[in-house]
Structure formats: C-alpha cells, structure tokens
C-alpha cells in the first residue's frame, strides 16, 4: 500500500515556507520574527528529509546551499548592526529612526529591522538544515557500509 505521507509532505513544503516568510515579515508588528521563521522553515525541510530522503530533499537549491545561506545571514546581521557606524550613528541604529515617518501598509512596514530579522532567519535555517543534512549523510553512509 502506498503511503499518503510522502506526497502530502511534499505538498506541505511550499505553504510552510510561505508561513515562515509571513512570520518573518510581520515580526515587527505581531507574533513572529526571524528566529521562529527560520526554525519553522527548517522544520519544513526536516519533514522532507524524513519522508522522501536526503537525495530528494536536496533537489531544492536552498537546501543544498543552506550553510552559505547562514553566512549571508551573518553578513546581513553584522551589516545592519555596523553599517550605520560608517554614517556616524551608534552601532545597531535602525532606520527609520524613532520619530521619523515610516513607509508601509497593513502589517508590513519597511524598516531595517526587517533586514536584521531576515539575517536571523537565514542563520537559523542554515544551522537547522545543515545539521539535518549532516545527520542524514552520516546515517546514510553507515547503512551502506554497515554490516
């Protein structure tokens, strides 16, 4: 009997990623933020690893390049924190500054905190996916070369 789980989990990937993106974007205004978004996206990928296996899961570019994505995330985080220093602001100054008007509509507001949170998301996602991938790799090779 074919299990309904693998096709279902494959269907679930994109909605989960969109929810993760939503968590990231509305983090400034309500429940959410970069950290849970990254963990959520990581869990979505974990589901793929468990149900369809490492090779299938690695079809996605974001999965193959998870560790470099974390590097990009760190650059975003550090950049948001220290770029303002070049313009003479204190480190970790976010824009628009308090009191300045901000752009945006509804739950979405353009703010440099979003870039920062995006960096957090990429780092957490990169960590979770890389750890999963390494575990899968190790268990996979063990089965092949095992007794």
């Amino acid at each position: 009997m074919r299990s309904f789980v693998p096709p279902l989990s494959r269907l679930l990937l994109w909605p989960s990623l969109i929810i993760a993106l939503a968590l990231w974007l509305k983090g400034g205004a309500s429940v959410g933020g970069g950290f849970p978004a990254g963990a959520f996206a990581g869990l979505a990928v974990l589901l793929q690893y468990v149900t369809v296996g490492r090779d299938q899961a690695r079809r996605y570019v974001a999965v193959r390049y998870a560790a470099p994505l974390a590097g990009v995330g760190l650059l975003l985080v550090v950049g948001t924190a220290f770029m303002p220093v070049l313009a003479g602001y204190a480190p970790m100054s976010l824009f628009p500054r308090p009191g300045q008007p901000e752009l945006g509509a509804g739950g979405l507001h353009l703010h440099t905190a979003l870039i920062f949170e995006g960096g957090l998301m990429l780092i957490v996602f990169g960590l979770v996916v890389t750890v999963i991938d390494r575990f899968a790799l190790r268990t996979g090779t063990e089965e092949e070369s095992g007794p």
Partner: protein
Amino acid sequence: MPILLPILLALACAPLAYVAGRWRTGAAAWTGALGALVALGALVHEWTTQGPSRLVLPWAPTWGLSLEFTRDGLSGLYAALALGVGALVVLYSRAYMPHHLAEEGRPARDEVRFQGLILAFMAAMVLLVTVDDLLLLFVALDLTTIISYLLIGFDREDPESRAAALLSLVLTGATSVVFFAGAMTLGLQYGTFSLPLVIERAAHDPASTGALVCLAVGALGKSAQVPFHFWLPRAMAAPTPVSSYLHSAAMVAAGVFLLQRLYPLFAPATEVRDGLLAIGFLSMGMGSLMALVADPFKRVLAYSTIAQYGYALVLVALGSEGAPLYVAAHAPCKAALFLTVGAITQVTGKKKLSEVSGLRHSLPVLAGASAIAAAGLSAVPLTEGFFKDEVFFAALVPKGPAFMAAGLVGAGMTLAYTLRLWWGLFGGPRQDVPAAPRLLVAPVVVLAGLILLGGLVPGLLVEPARAAAEAMRGEPSTLELAYHFDARPENLLAVGAWVLGALLFATRHAWTPALSRVLEAASRVGAERGYRLLLHQLDRLSTWLHEKEVRDLRDRVASVLVPTGLLGLAVLGVTPLRDRFKVGPVGWADVTLVMALAFASAAALATLRAKGHLRLVLLISCVGFSLAMVFAFAAAPDVALTSVLVETTFTLLFAGLLALLPEDRLRRAQEEAQKPRGRDRLAAGVAGASAFLLSWSALSHLHADRVGTRTVELAEIAHSPNVVAAVLTDFRGLDTVGEMSVVVAALLGVTSLLGLKKGRR
C-alpha cells in the same frame, strides 16, 4: 592628518610589494624599498618643515580612549632608522633570498612573502614609535612580536627555526603581557592612557613602583636583556636579513625605545632605575664575554647586540641625553655587520669563524665596508660610533671610578670581539671564494658610507640626537658632539678601552679556552635552564588538569557546571542579602500556570529514572513543551511560538543524533548514569542550587510594571509594536549579533566535525 602620512606610506609598502611580487617576483623588493624611501622622505620633509606636533583621533570618547600619534625627536629618529635600514635590508634580501630559498628547496615565489613580512614589520615598528598612547603602544608592540615570529620561523621546514621562533614569541609575548599589566595599572591610576597626560599627572603623583617594574620587564624582554636574553642567540636561526633588521635596528631597539619614551615616569623612581642600571651592566658583561668566545658569526653578533643594548639600558637608567644617539649610532654598524656575515655565508656556505679566513683577497669591497662598520661598533674615531662611546663615558664619569672602570672594560671587550670577528673573517691565511653579487655588497657599502659621514661631520647627528633627547627627558638638551684633543676623562677612557681591547685581542689564544669552559659551566645554571624548567612544570600541570577533566563525560560536564555554580554562589555571597528571596502571592488565576509548571517539574524528575536514551529525550522535550505552555498562559505568544518550534527541532535532531552514536557506548552510558557517584551528586547539587538561588533572587527583584510599561512605550517609538521583536532587534541588538555569531560558529563546528569523521572512514 600630516603626522599619519609616513605611517600610511609605511603601511602601504607591504601590500604594494605583494601586488608587485605577483607580477614579477623581483619587483617586490624594489617596490618595497622605494615605498620605504618615500615614507622616509615624507618623514624628513615633515620634520624639517613642520617640527614636532601631535594628533588625537577620538576612538571611544565616553571611555576616554583615543588614538594618539606624535611627531617628536624620538619618533622621528627611530622611524628614520626603521625605514632607512628597512629599505636597505629589503634590497639585500633581493640578492640573498633566491639563493637561500633554493638551498631550502622552496619555490622562488616565497621571496614575495618574505619581503611582505619584512615590510609589514617595518610598518609595525614605525607605528610603535609614532603612537603616543599606552594601549596603542601595547598593540604595536604585539604586532612586532607576531610578525617577528613569522620572520624568525620563516624556514618552516627547519625544526630549529621553528623552535627559535616559538621561544622568541613566548618570551617577548609574555613580557609584553607584563607590559600591558603595567600600562593598565597606569591607565587606572591616572584615568587616561594618553601618554602626555599620564606624564603630566605623574609629575604630582609618581607612578607606582609595581607598574614601572611591569613596564620595564616588557622593555627588557624586547631588548633581550638579562634574564630574558637567551631568545636572541636562538633567533639567529632566522634568515640573515631578518637578523640584520630585527636584531639591530628594529625589534631589540623597541625595548630601549619604550624605556626612552616612558622615561619621565622612570625619572623619579630611583630604585627602579638602579635595577635597570644593574641589569644593563650585567647584560653588557655577559654579552661581551659570550661574544668573545662564540664561534658562529651570527652568534657573535647576537651576543654583541645583547651587550650593546646593555649599554643603551645603562644610559637610559642614568638618564643620559645620549641614550637615543647610542641606539641610532649602533644600529647601522650592527646591521652592516649582519649583512656582511650573511653575504659571506652565501658565497662560502660556512657559518663559523673557525671555518673561514683570509677573505679580504676575494671580497675586498666587503672587507673594507665591514671594516668601517666594525670600527663604528668599537667606537674608533672618524666613525659615528666614536660618539656613542663618548656619550657613554660622559654619562659614567660623574658616577665615579667604579662606573668608569666598568665602562672601560665593556668598551675594551667590544673592541676585542669586533676585532676577533673581523680578523676571523678577513684576516689570516688566504681562502679564495667566488665574488659576492653586487646587490649583496651595496647595502653594506651604503651603511659604511653613512657611518663614515656621521663620524666626519658630527654636526649632522647633533640636531636629531638633541631632539630625541628632548623628547625623552622633556627638557632642552645641550648635547655636543665634537672631537676634542685634550686629556678630558672621556678621551682617556676611550684610549684606555682601545689599549685594553688590543691587548685582549693580541692575547686571545691564551684565554679563550679557559673562558669558554667557564661560560659553558655557567650556562648550565643560567636563565635559559630556569625557563625550560618552568615550561616543563607548566606543561605537567596542564596535562594533569586535562586528565582530571576528560576522564569521562560526567566529569567533563561537571568541570563546566561546578565552577559556574560556585561563581554564581560567590556572586550571591558578596552582594547584600536584604529582600533577596521573596515568596510572591499565588491566586486562583495562576492555577493553569502552576499546573503547567508542576508538569514540567514532574517531567524533569522523571528524567532521573528514565531508561533508554530516546525516552530521556522525549522527557526533556516534555519539560520544554510545558514551559512553552507556561509562556502561552502568561500571554507571551511570541516566546511560546519560538519555544515550541525550538523544542520540536531540538527533539527531532536529538533523536537523529542518537542514531549516530554507537549502540554499546549508549548502553554503557545508561548503566553509568543509573549509578551516580558521590562527586556526581555533589556537582549536581552545587550547579542546581546555584541556578535555583540565582533565578529566585533575580525574580524577587523584578520591577515588572515599571520595566514592562516603559519597554512597551519605547517599542512603539521604535516602530516595532511587537515588544519581543523590539528588544531582540533594537534595544539588545548587539547581544543578538553576538548570539548569532555563536550560532554560525556552531554551524561551522558541525560542518567540519561531521564532515571530517566521514572523511576518516
């Protein structure tokens, strides 16, 4: 920012030389030397047109920290030395390194790396002499230490080179940490690190002896003075251009430079200066004696350097205005002699005095030029070296006959070992060797020309020497340099020294064997042996601690938890206890919270009796999930969401990790965990009690309402109605940056550890 121009030019040399070296290997040296000369030109131009000045760049003004640079006599003199000798050494290396690299069996392209390092060292040295701030002084000092490690160990295939590099790194690094301690003490005592301010405040409130001793130790280590002297002869394992630069004009000069820069602090501390005086005389005597018997040429020069910096130290300790001049007059002579022996090693392949002789016939130009350098080193008239001994004697005369006698013997031995070296190389029965490449000889000739020029026209030296003495002592200098044909004590002492030196040289066959035996015996109880013993004991201590720590997993965990727990308890112990531990009210509204907490505690207790690792993981995640529930009840949906996600990820990954561990290892760990030992209970008790008490104390002091309302207000202003997000990204943003760096470090660890294991299979 005119003061910075020479520094910036010096800093640009190494990268420019590297780029040029990528194009043609040979271009690196020429570019670097040109850069150094341009920087020297800028320095001289600024000095002659603008005179002394300072530059202060604020760095962290709230902490009173700034980057301060100065242009005064001292910085000008030493920077000119570093740049001028640096340029010549770089050119010399162009001729020396290809041969050296070929002998070591390394590609010729490595020369670019070498030139880059030499130039980087030059830049660090220029930085060191130009900064006017205790912290920057330390930073620049350590920069020179690190680059010198790379330079001394440049022949990385050679174990002796590597050991020498490590020894010099450990000694000069450890002493510069002591220097840092001294600098910090001064900074705390005077509330500033800016040198002029420190010196100004020290005029009313003298610096503490401890701080001064710390500063002096840093300087002595750098200048290879007793008892830290033994790294220098070892460091002769380096390629000769390194020795000729670092160990004549740059690295060893840094120590004496520091003492001169900080002299106003030392001036009132007579006891410290007396100590320095004793060390100076000791280094002088020891270095000279060793130089009289050493056989490898470079060792002779190394011991001579120890002795000569002993002289410089004596001058500083006596507060003589000739101290900067002494270093400046010594450096070109010593550099020229190092370059000479390097050239000889290259053409003959020999390294010891007993293996060569009579090279004057084959290498006449080198013989002549190095004769001038040797004359300069042993203070013969018509060379600038004459004046270094003149200021030395002038400083000793007022101190009385004992000091005069010591100076006379020291100067006599200098002449004796210099004669021995030069005669051993160029005198005696003729040996024929191939001619030396012109580029190898040219720097020696240039240096010899400068030494002669300084001796023939002493007026040229007067102004820089006076400016430097003024910067050192903070009062106008009246230093005079001229030849006097009369029976003043300085002249009599000089004549006495020459006679003594000539006598020692003439009778050398009579006393050399006895002296080498005595020195051999003395070296068994010397400082070097003490250093080795200390290192050995430290090594044993660290091994012992390591073995205690890694005996098994529980001990390893305990070695983290117990010190942390004790630290927490100590913190609680030293802070006042009033209202420390409060028990708050519990109402019916809190029932859900209490239930969730009870569930969490029950799960935590259950882990103690759990059998099987998977069950353990599930129980721990139960704790996490029930805490998430607590957050949800406490109206903190953001934290609850994150908790749930993190718990889920953690549980799944932990379960996955269990699949990676060997079965029997897991079973054994289970069995051990069921039988806790006494010390395990103790460790758990300490860690648990500390965590419990710290949390209780912290929660008793919450000003929840005040902090909460204020935070919500601020979050609105910061355009982030979500308070948690505002705290994470805005109020505590730098913390988050730090935490995220840790996460990325963990990621790198996972990648390399798990990837590596796979490769080993």
